[in-house]
């Protein structure tokens, strides 16, 4: 993390125009950061991972005069005191990468609160521009902000902006260039009262290290007195002996002043920013707007759980139906609208993509006439097959992340977390876990990336282990095909049962892990609830698009390589000879070895290895299960291919459950690793899903047999 500065070069490659100015944007979540970034850069952004993490950073270019400005949209933070992966990324950027200018955003509708972050940044950075966002909203709520006055008091340029009105953007760019080219600003000095003697003493001792630390020594001194772990780590490397001195000082202050320095500093800084805000803001004739009424409703103790649950359910059923046709097709056909159900079945996103890819392949086939068989197979089955599996994911991720972006951007997500916290607590999870959990039904990769917002480390680890058991849409596609092979009523019951089982398992495991593994105490919640506002369609669209693009690039690569590997495994014999007959391949041999393991699920006999074969491929991504089945049975239609396996109803149901639970996918496992940096957690998640899936599938198989014998 510390030497992330190295990686910057590799982090922003491939731009035709080299930026002459780097500007980091920092602000609260919900402050209107994405909207402003979007307006400044015209939506042309590149997403990249922060080195060594999965924290997404957006980079965008803007030509302004002769300058090419690169804007770096840092993840939203409430303060520089924030820990965890997000806080670390922001501090690394500010302290070690040092952008040319830092742009801090202050929410025009809540200056009192958000100005504090600008004050914190002005204390550390020497080139700061402050933008006040949502001036239009502030105006309509009767809030008048004296930007001039704030600017004078802070000694920094303060520019009022409104993306909706297109106000202040030009002025903001001018201010940025001006500050970049001008002399460095004097870091803001807040008088810390009784702490001043300590701050000064420590600061003067740190002064010789200033060049190597690269930050003003006064700020470092204040942070050391607070006990900021991130700053302690940096100082520990450069001036270790001062670390102990700072710690002794901290203890001494607590003893003599009777108050902890951390609290004293926070208090002084808040007082400073509050008086700054109150001196420069006038509120007149506050009216309750429509969003504010909705605001109250979403926090109402009786209404809010229903509103939250209904909203989440509706959004996801809509996304599911759009993507896979399920469950809208079942609802329609059970209501007697058979024709409408068929339309939904054949015109959902997954079906359309499949047809499109099938069409593309059929166009390519004649072009490869006369080429060697292995080359044809490599291109058609390996490469095209691999790309199409990765592409199939894209619309699923897109719709889900668009919905999530709307929930986040509007401020609804924290309210849902709040109002459902009492319910999630019953299974040992906090309201924070709701958002990641719900997202996991869309896509595990996206869902697990949202886990980092949970404040308790123990709970985060637990979530990485149990959430992958929630079936994503990719798995849904597979067990929908299995369900269709079982038959309509029992099939639908099977799908519902699979969901019920996986949710129950998550709840049970959460409880069990609390007891024996993470040993966490009760789930905690500590969360800012921002004001509600109408989400900008452009922002939702852009967020969804950039997430999808990023997914295609990162996870898509893994899936593609995985698909290629399965092609190799299923196209070569153990003696490494190309074979057009998959039943002679390495994978087939491996499957035959593994077949006995699946006897407890009733998967036995001649064709048993074909069923297992798909499961091996499913390690990489679950959709591959169906395509590999198509390859091996030679039957294109997935439902017919499943029927060809001639499995009993009990085995099919058990298989559905197994597919829903065992190893989420390679992408998910790699995300668990990158988020936790722990091989142990990633492997535990892998083993846990395998064991749970296997045992549950056996249970389902026998349960169904017993049920049959009774009826």
């Amino acid at each position, binding site marked *: 993390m510390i030497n992330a500065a190295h990686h910057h070069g590799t982090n922003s490659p491939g731009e035709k125009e080299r930026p002459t100015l780097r500007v980091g944007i920092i602000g609260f979540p919900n402050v209107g950061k994405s909207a402003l970034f979007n307006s400044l850069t015209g939506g042309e952004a590149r997403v990249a991972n922060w080195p060594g993490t999965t924290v997404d950073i957006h980079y965008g270019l803007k030509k302004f005069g002769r300058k090419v400005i690169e804007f770096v949209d840092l993840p939203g933070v409430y303060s520089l005191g924030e820990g965890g992966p997000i806080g670390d990324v922001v501090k690394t950027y500010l302290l070690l990468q040092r952008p040319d200018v830092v742009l801090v955003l202050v929410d025009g509708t809540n200056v009192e609160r958000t100005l504090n972050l600008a004050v914190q940044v002005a204390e550390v950075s020497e080139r700061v521009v402050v933008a006040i966002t949502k001036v239009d909203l502030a105006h309509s709520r009767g809030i008048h902000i004296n930007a001039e006055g704030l600017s004078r008091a802070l000694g920094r340029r303060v520019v009022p902006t409104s993306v909706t009105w297109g106000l202040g953007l030009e002025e903001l760019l001018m201010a940025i260039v001006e500050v970049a080219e001008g002399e460095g600003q004097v870091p803001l000095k807040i008088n810390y009262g009784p702490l001043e003697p300590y701050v000064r003493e420590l600061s003067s001792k740190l002064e010789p290290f200033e060049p190597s630390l690269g930050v003003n020594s006064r700020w470092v001194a204040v942070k050391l007195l607070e006990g900021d772990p991130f700053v302690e780590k940096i100082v520990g490397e450069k001036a270790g002996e001062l670390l102990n001195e700072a710690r002794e000082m901290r203890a001494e202050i607590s003893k003599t002043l009777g108050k902890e320095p951390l609290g004293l500093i926070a208090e002084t800084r808040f007082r400073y920013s509050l008086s700054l805000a109150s001196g420069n803001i006038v509120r007149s004739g506050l009216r309750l707007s429509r969003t504010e009424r909705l605001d109250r409703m979403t926090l109402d103790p009786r209404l809010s759980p229903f509103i939250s649950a209904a909203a989440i359910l509706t959004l996801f059923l809509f996304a599911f139906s759009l993507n896979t046709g399920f469950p809208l097709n079942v609802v329609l056909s059970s209501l007697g609208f058979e024709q409408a159900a068929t339309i939904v079945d054949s015109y959902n996103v997954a079906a359309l993509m499949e047809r499109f890819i099938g069409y593309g392949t059929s166009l390519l086939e004649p072009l490869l006439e006369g080429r060697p068989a292995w080359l044809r197979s490599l291109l058609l089955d390996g490469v095209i097959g691999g790309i199409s599996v990765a592409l199939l994911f894209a619309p699923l991720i897109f719709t889900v992340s668009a919905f999530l972006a709307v929930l986040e951007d509007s401020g609804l997500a924290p309210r849902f977390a709040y109002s459902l916290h009492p319910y999630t*607590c019953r299974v040992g999870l906090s309201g924070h876990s709701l958002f990641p959990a719900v997202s996991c039904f869309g896509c595990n990769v996206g869902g697990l990336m949202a886990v980092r917002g949970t404040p308790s480390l123990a709970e985060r680890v637990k979530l990485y282990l149990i959430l992958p058991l929630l079936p994503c849409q990719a798995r849904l596609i597979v067990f929908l095909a299995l369900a269709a092979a079982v038959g309509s009523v029992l099939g639908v019951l099977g799908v519902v049962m699979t969901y019920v089982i996986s949710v129950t398992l998550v709840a049970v495991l959460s409880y069990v892990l609390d007891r024996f593994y993470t040993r966490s105490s009760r789930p905690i919640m500590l969360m800012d609830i921002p004001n509600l506002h109408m989400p900008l369609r452009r922002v939702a669209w852009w967020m969804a698009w950039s997430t999808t693009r990023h997914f295609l690039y990162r996870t898509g690569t893994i899936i593609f390589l995985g698909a290629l590997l399965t092609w190799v495994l299923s196209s070569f014999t153990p003696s490494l000879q190309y074979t057009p007959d998959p039943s002679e391949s390495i994978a087939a041999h491996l499957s035959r070895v593994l077949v006995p393991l699946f006897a407890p699920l009733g998967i036995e006999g001649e064709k048993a290895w074909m069923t297992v074969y798909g499961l091996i491929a499913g390690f990489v991504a679950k959709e591959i299960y169906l395509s590999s089945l198509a390859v091996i049975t030679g039957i294109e239609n997935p439902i017919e291919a499943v029927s060809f396996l001639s499995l009993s109803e009990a085995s099919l149901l058990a298989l559905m459950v197994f597919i829903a639970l065992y190893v989420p996918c390679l992408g998910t496992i790699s995300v668990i690793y990158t988020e936790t940096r722990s091989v142990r957690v990633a492997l535990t998640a892998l083993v846990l899903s395998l064991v749970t899936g296997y045992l549950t599938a056996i249970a389902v198989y026998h349960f169904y047999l017993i049920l049959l014998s009774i009826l």
Partner: protein
Amino acid sequence: MIIKGTDLDEELRFRLYYMGLYPGSKVQIVRNDGRYPVLVEAHGSLIALSADIAEKVYAERVVEREGDQ
């Protein structure tokens, strides 16, 4: 209410103080019904604290004077 202090561990204390709930901070309890997390208003923002966090934050009731914010 005025916050007096807290028993929370370092990481959570950082978060809490930086959210505006530091010792000496004047806050208003918006809702505390024992079922939902406690809703607190501090310096214009709304903060939700679950019971076990709120339990460890000590506050003292103050009599509001006329004209006090």
